């Protein structure tokens, strides 16, 4: 429009203003016309600035005052750089602008203006050379529009596009984009090309049943029919057949949405092989936990039977809970060691937890680093518990000075042997074998049965002695069998 005005192509302008439409005639070059032109330019929403050949400002309109935050009275006569600094978007723009002005008398393009208060603006400028009646260049007229908001919006759109493209390309789901009308694939992400073994170019233009996802055309049509009703379709478990004929289980979620007014289908295809495997594994673990719990309850039940069978009924509850605690301590060790066997020293310490303060003084523990099998740990653990209980009631730990020496060793030979002993000394005089009961059965038989070995018990005057001998392969977990 300004160009038309400058070239005298219009005779009059009607401009909407706060006081109603105003008519400006543009005929003639007199002062009155110039005033009209000035008033008219004041109504324009773009900033208009005219400078002379020395870049001194000879005119700026109201929009320019607002844009740069500078009143005309202060700006007139000053240079452009007194109201803003400019920066080119691309280095070559400066030369292009100079050439345009010189050769065609105009330039139009984007640049960045910095106001004096530091605010940065993206601007779209139209720059035209001003000439006098003889054609001599007298200055330049710039019409400047603030496009910062538009620019920011464009940046947001571009960033969003980059972001979603990256998501698409790095997604852990295979993604196919389909045209609902033709049912053909229009885009495919790198993961689905790897899952299927087809190149991107082969996928684009194909239908789902042609690339091994749905079984036939009817299934493909059915999916689209459902999508048009519900906008989303989910297949929990579909076989996905790849180019080589291999099949993997996938979950497919298809959604229908509009993109620029056109319907688009997006299919997310997730490989659920791992998930299936993990579900199976959890199921297996739960079953195993159940089995172990039942076995342990069966052991507790057996201990309860035996505890009830012997001894004073008045102390039944106390004796039973002691034994259950001992079983629990042994169980803890098995779990801590992932059911892979238990260190002898750990087992001894766990079963003598009540005498922790005496360990190293009246209770001496010595033996090499060796790991018992699960069965051996359970049998020997129960025997140690009964031995300790007996020692505390009748033996070396029932007075203030008796000692217990617990030792084990591995003897290497033609047949390697695991030996373990419990030797009491300094206890009250042993007068008779300890009372018949489950404890004695455990000490005599349980540990021996667990390692298919032999247990000997001797009631010497100085104190009880217990020795266990077993083939090393029955007692120790294979990783440590035969260790020093």
């Amino acid at each position, binding site marked *: 429009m300004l160009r038309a005005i400058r070239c005298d192509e219009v005779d009059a302008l009607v401009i909407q203003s706060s006081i109603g439409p105003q008519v400006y005639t543009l005929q003639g070059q007199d002062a009155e016309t110039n005033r009209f032109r000035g008033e008219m330019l004041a109504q324009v929403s773009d900033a208009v600035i005219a400078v002379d050949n020395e870049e001194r400002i000879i005119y700026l309109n109201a929009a320019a005052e607002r844009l740069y935050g500078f009143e005309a009275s202060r700006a007139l006569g000053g240079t452009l750089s007194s109201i803003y600094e400019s920066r080119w978007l691309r280095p070559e723009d400066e030369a292009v602008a100079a050439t345009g002005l010189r050769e065609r008398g105009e330039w139009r393009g984007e640049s960045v203006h910095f106001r004096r208060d530091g605010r940065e603006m993206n601007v779209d400028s139209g720059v035209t050379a001003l000439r006098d009646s003889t054609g001599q260049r007298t200055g330049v007229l710039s019409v400047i529009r603030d496009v910062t908001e538009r620019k920011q919006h464009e940046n947001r759109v571009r960033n969003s596009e980059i972001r979603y493209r990256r998501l698409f390309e790095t997604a852990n789901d295979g993604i196919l984009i389909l045209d609902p009308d033709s049912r053909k694939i229009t885009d495919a992400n790198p993961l689905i090309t790897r899952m299927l073994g087809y190149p991107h170019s082969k996928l684009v233009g194909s239908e789902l049943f042609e690339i091994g996802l749905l079984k036939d055309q009817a299934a493909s049509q059915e999916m689209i029919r459902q999508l048009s009703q519900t906008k989303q379709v989910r297949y929990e478990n579909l076989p996905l057949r790849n180019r080589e004929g291999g099949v993997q289980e996938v979950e497919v979620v298809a959604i229908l949405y509009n993109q620029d007014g056109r319907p688009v289908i997006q299919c997310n295809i997730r490989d659920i092989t791992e998930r299936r495997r993990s579900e199976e594994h959890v199921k297996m673990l739960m079953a195993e936990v159940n089995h172990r719990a039942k076995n342990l309850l069966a*052991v507790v039940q057996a201990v309860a*039977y035996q505890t009830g069978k012997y001894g004073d009924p008045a102390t039944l509850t106390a004796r039973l809970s002691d034994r259950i605690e001992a079983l629990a301590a042994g169980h803890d060790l098995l779990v801590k060691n992932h059911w892979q066997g238990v260190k002898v020293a750990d087992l001894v310490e766990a079963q003598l937890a009540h005498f922790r303060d005496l360990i190293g003084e009246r209770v001496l523990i010595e033996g090499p680093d060796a790991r018992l099998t699960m*069965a051996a740990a359970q049998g020997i653990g*129960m025997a140690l518990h009964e031995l300790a209980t007996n020692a505390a009631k009748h033996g070396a730990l029932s007075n203030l000075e008796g000692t217990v020496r617990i030792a084990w060793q591995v003897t290497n030979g033609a047949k390697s042997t695991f030996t373990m002993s419990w030797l009491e000394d300094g206890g009250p005089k042993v007068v008779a074998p300890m009372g018949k009961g489950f404890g004695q059965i455990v000490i005599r038989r*349980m540990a021996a*049965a667990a390692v298919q070995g032999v247990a000997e018990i001797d009631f010497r005057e100085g104190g009880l002695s217990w020795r266990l001998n077993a083939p090393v392969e029955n007692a120790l977990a294979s990783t440590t069998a035969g260790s020093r």
Partner: protein
Amino acid sequence: MSARKTIFDDQHPRVLIVEDEPVLALLLEECLIETGFEIAGVTARLEAALAMIESGVCDAAILDGNLAGVDAGPAASALRAHGIPFVVLSGYSADQLSSAFSGALRLQKPCGMDRVVRALRSILPALPPPPVIPSAGEQTPV
């Protein structure tokens, strides 16, 4: 298998105990003796169990489904092959046991001793009248 004695030679059926839990094996042993059975052997290992079955020393068996991680299925097959009745005693449910156990009489651990004794009697043909189960055997399981 023809070498083995018949059940009623001495009126005390001989039971093989295949159980990897020593406490339980011991309890089974005691309870069976108290209820009029004889113990043919106690083992926690599959090879030993197979050898005992082969030698024909037992009239019936109590079989744990799993021996320290080893499937006891082959022992079940061997028992069937020799026509020896058996009771499966296991912490596993029926569907977790190998197919060798299918159709066998199964008791789920934990299981009261009176039930074990009743199950054994039920799989042995025409036994003498059951002796009274001693008090310990009649205790209610925990």
